[in-house]
């Protein structure tokens, strides 16, 4: 079994790391961290089958492996391409990658309503971040954008399909949480829409997590909709005894009140421990929760771009206290 545990080397933007065989380029890049991590709109490490769809994580492989050093002719989706020993990958240092990524961002935005000023996701939206980094200042699209009616899927969740970028994350979440396929994609091409089976309510104790996995504001929490901009709320680590889930969550506070509850996301915006609907939607009193302290949020988003690039020295200990 010695071969199986042997690490293999991969170089991304000049930085080399040893990883287990079978690791994807994206996860190798995340292990290195920092600038070399490609953005990902659809890949979600805990959801089986996710990835490969948004094409924002495209990278250039300029050396296939030690054995076969030929470069790969096309850009590859780093989230679904496994690394080979001696592989050399170019992410930000490649002109082709930057160009393709510009294209993908533009494609994602042409049918997006750009209603950030009234969108609850603004401030923690991955598409906003991506557009800020790679987008154009002005759109070249001069046609009518596609629109859909908003629908309620379940008591607490609002689906605003117009904003959706069809990453399929919520589809995989619902599929892997429930036994039947009651949430999926209908129609095709740019008419494709996320929907439930004849607008059924999604009925599952953990279904609220589709809100957290959504990279944009297509799925929002009806108990929080239009209550506050996220940057006016303070994220606090909180926990409670819950029979269904770990009970570890983030309470977003306005003053002494809990405005909303979400699961805890890591620096790549992914939830590792899903929380149940009861914790998320029903427990909004401060007495329900044990507040642990302020949560450090990775401030890379467009909202904080001008303010938080360098942590303010006197506040640094507080920000890092998690």
């Amino acid at each position, binding site marked *: 079994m010695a071969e199986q545990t042997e690490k293999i080397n991969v170089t991304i933007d000049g930085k080399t790391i040893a990883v287990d065989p079978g690791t994807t380029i994206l996860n190798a890049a995340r292990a290195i961290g920092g600038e070399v991590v490609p953005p990902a709109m659809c890949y979600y490490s805990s959801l089986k089958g996710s*990835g*490969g*769809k*948004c*094409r*924002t994580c*495209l990278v250039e492989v300029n050396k296939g492996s030690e054995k076969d050093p030929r470069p790969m*002719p*096309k*850009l590859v*989706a780093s989230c*679904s391409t496994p690394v080979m020993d001696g592989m050399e990958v170019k992410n930000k240092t490649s002109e082709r990658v930057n*160009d*393709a990524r*510009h*294209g*993908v961002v*533009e*494609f*994602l935005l*042409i*049918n997006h309503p750009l209603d950030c000023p009234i969108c609850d996701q603004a401030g923690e939206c991955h598409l906003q971040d991506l557009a800020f980094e790679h987008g154009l200042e002005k759109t*070249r*699209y001069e*046609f*009518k954008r596609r629109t859909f009616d908003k629908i309620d899927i379940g008591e607490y969740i609002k689906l605003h399909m117009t904003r959706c*970028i*069809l990453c*399929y994350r919520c589809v995989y979440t619902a599929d892997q949480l429930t036994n039947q396929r009651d949430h*999926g*994609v209908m*129609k*095709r*091409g*740019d*008419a*494709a829409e996320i929907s439930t089976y004849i607008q059924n309510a999604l009925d599952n104790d953990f279904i609220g997590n589709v809100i957290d996995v959504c990279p944009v504001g297509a799925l929002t929490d009806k108990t929080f909709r239009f209550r506050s901009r996220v940057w006016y709320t303070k994220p606090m680590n909180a926990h409670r005894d819950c029979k269904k889930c770990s009970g570890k969550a983030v309470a977003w506070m306005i003053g002494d009140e809990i405005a909303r509850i979400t699961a805890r996301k890591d620096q790549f915006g992914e939830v590792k421990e899903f929380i149940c609907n009861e914790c998320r939607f029903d427990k909004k009193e401060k007495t329900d929760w044990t507040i642990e302290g302020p949560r450090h949020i990775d401030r890379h988003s467009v909202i904080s771009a001008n303010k938080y690039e360098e942590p303010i020295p006197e506040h640094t200990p507080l920000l890092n206290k998690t």
Partner: protein
Amino acid sequence: MARKLLLENAHIEGIHTYDVYRKNGGYRSVEKTLKTMSPEDVVEEVKKSGLRGRGGAGFPTGMKWSFIAKPDGVPRHLLCNADESEPGTFKDRYLMEKIPHLLIEGMIVSSFALGANHSYIYIRGEYMYVLHILEKAIAEAYANGWLGKNIMGSGFDLDLSVSPGAGAYICGEETALIESLEGKRGNPRMKPPFPAVKGLWQRPTVVNNVETIAAVVPIVNEGGDAYAQIGIGRSTGTKLISAGGNINKPGVYEIEMNISVEEFIYSDTYCGGIKNGKKLKACVPGGSSVPILPHYLVCKTAAGQDRLMTYESLADGGFAAGSMLGSGGFIVYDEDQCIVRNTWNFTRFYHHESCGQCSPCREGTGWMEKVLHRLEYGHGKMEDIDLLWDIQRKIEGNTICPLGDAAAWPVAAAIRHFREEFEWHVKEPKACMERNYGLVAEKIFEPATA
């Protein structure tokens, strides 16, 4: 007269029935295979024949077959891709409609070579009447002992099923076809793993075009070497070409892959020249996905040699001055046809057929269609041409499956070779409308409100 291997008996009355087909030498290859050959022998013959995939990509079939994984105890499958939906291509329909038993015969031999005991023909939903013909033929084959358990006492079992699609072009992509056959939404899968390792129900699977599977029959009957004698270089054997457009004799032709494009268009054996004595303007030689060729590159390559109906010769000059044999949907345009309108029509198709899974294709095809529509109907701007070029460049190569490329290539080639016509649409919209739409032009030319 050129030799025909597939359509030789297609004209015989009643050839679609088992009795007539058998009397004319049908199922000989099955007898030969099951009695005298091992599966490896069949694969070896196909390798020797140099047969290349007839569905569009032209990948060597023998090599594809040898890639199939053979884990112990896991069933393998052969799928026949009869989801022929490429605009301009209609050769498989003709073959299945006229001589369905040839496909069934090829399926038996190919399944034997691959060790598959349950094979499927995935047919497009619009070919429902062909499906009925096939099912009738399959029932006859079962009744006569060519399908089922222990065929010809050889110990080889094979079940053959026909499954219709629901009208999606994307299900002609092999992994989308597999998804669709599994009863799911026809979205292409991420590769790797390739179907040869994990295909239908995660089992090793080979997907072949109708014509490829049918070609296995003459290869086994006459031997791979004899088949490889026909044609030029790596383009061996015969190819079905579905010719359409402004020609005198549209239809399905079986050609030996050594004739020139000029002969194919102008000879009376084939297309019989351009209709109404007009001049050739352009030609799409392999179905709507392949780059369009302007008249000066149709019969001659950029280097001045005669262009032949082969994989290599049609691709001569790369994308700058060549095209592809593709699936053999040969479309000819005369001098009156509008390239902008044609490109818009193709793009409209790809927009409609994009599965919507990955962003560049989902959003890009719709955008291109809208821009082309604007150009065609006289509201275009000069920048639109460069915008189109930029959009297609950002789709090509960045998508999960080849549909993105197929949508990008025709646009790229049209702009590359017919930029002047695009510019003319911007500068002289009214003249363009009059040419394309004649008397009704005045009405269409009203500025659109939407």
